[in-house]
């Protein structure tokens, strides 16, 4: 989880890590999500499919973490 939080902070230093509306409230936009996905693939060695790239999988740190765990 720490590694993921660090990644998010690098991509969006202004991010609210406690938010559960990261996409809905605009902390993460499409641009950030694609960057994040490529970083996650490299850092966590998981395969993220195009159909996994939906707002609900990126709306909170927990949701992103769950996605990574599901794909491991």
């Amino acid at each position: 989880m720490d590694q993921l939080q660090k990644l998010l902070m690098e991509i969006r230093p202004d991010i609210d890590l406690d938010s559960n509306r990261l996409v809905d409230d605009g902390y993460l936009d499409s641009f950030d999500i694609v960057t994040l996905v490529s970083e996650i693939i490299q850092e966590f060695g998981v395969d993220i499919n195009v159909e996994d790239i939906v707002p609900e999988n990126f709306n909170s740190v927990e949701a992103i973490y769950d996605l990574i765990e599901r794909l491991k």
Partner: protein
Amino acid sequence: MELVKSFEEIAPLVKQYLKVGMETNLFLSEEEYRSLIAQERLYYECFEGGILLFKKRAWDTLCYFELNCFEVPSIVLETISKIKEPLVVELVYKTKEPIQSISFFQTLGFKEVLRRVRMKRKERKDFLETPWKVKLASKKQQEAVFSFLQEEFSLHTGCIPSKEELSKILLQEKILVVQDEKENIMGVLHFEVQNAFSQIRHLAVKEAYRHQNVAGALIQKYHEITMQDQQVVWVSEQNETAQRVYQKYGYDFEAYHSLVMMRKDEEDGSITKTFNGD
């Protein structure tokens, strides 16, 4: 260049190039892929260093890309040279220009036609009285709105919706108009709402009615409707008049930029002919 036949065919190819260091403008959702595929409007060219997707539009073809390697392979040069209709690519970036992608498309004969910057409403200003009555456009006005957009915006860079798309937009009540006493359209504002964001997609006022605060009336009505959302708009970097209008209504510049490039046969000069600086 191949027609994309199914989402299941294209998804693994797109995934293959999602790597650190890649440059992309490909942010389509699964739903958008499926809709384009069903309409047989999506093509692709896959090569060692990336993938290009081509979305057929009424007037041209829009390019999406994922690039890991920025040398142009001969297969891409060959494919692009066979495409006779205008090709448009939009590169969106934050602060730093994607110079490698720009160079890639320049090699393919694309030329810069428009630079835009995103502005966001950061301040809620007091309501300014205007004499204009703003109304939601009705389904009956579809033809008039369509003609208005075609006259006021560039076919290639203006993101003009098709008649079918416009029909849906009108049903969603996302188009505002100001009309004169004979019910001719003086100004149009088209917006969309996604998540907590709303975005002005088109705002234009007929030349004869400019400098009378028609745009201000439309913007204020739009603010009233979307008051719960974060409001953004992409404005041409050259259009200082439009930028000043938005600043007057509380908008400020963001770090997001967009560069639109286009490839077209030089003979008919349509790159410059269709770019009207909107």
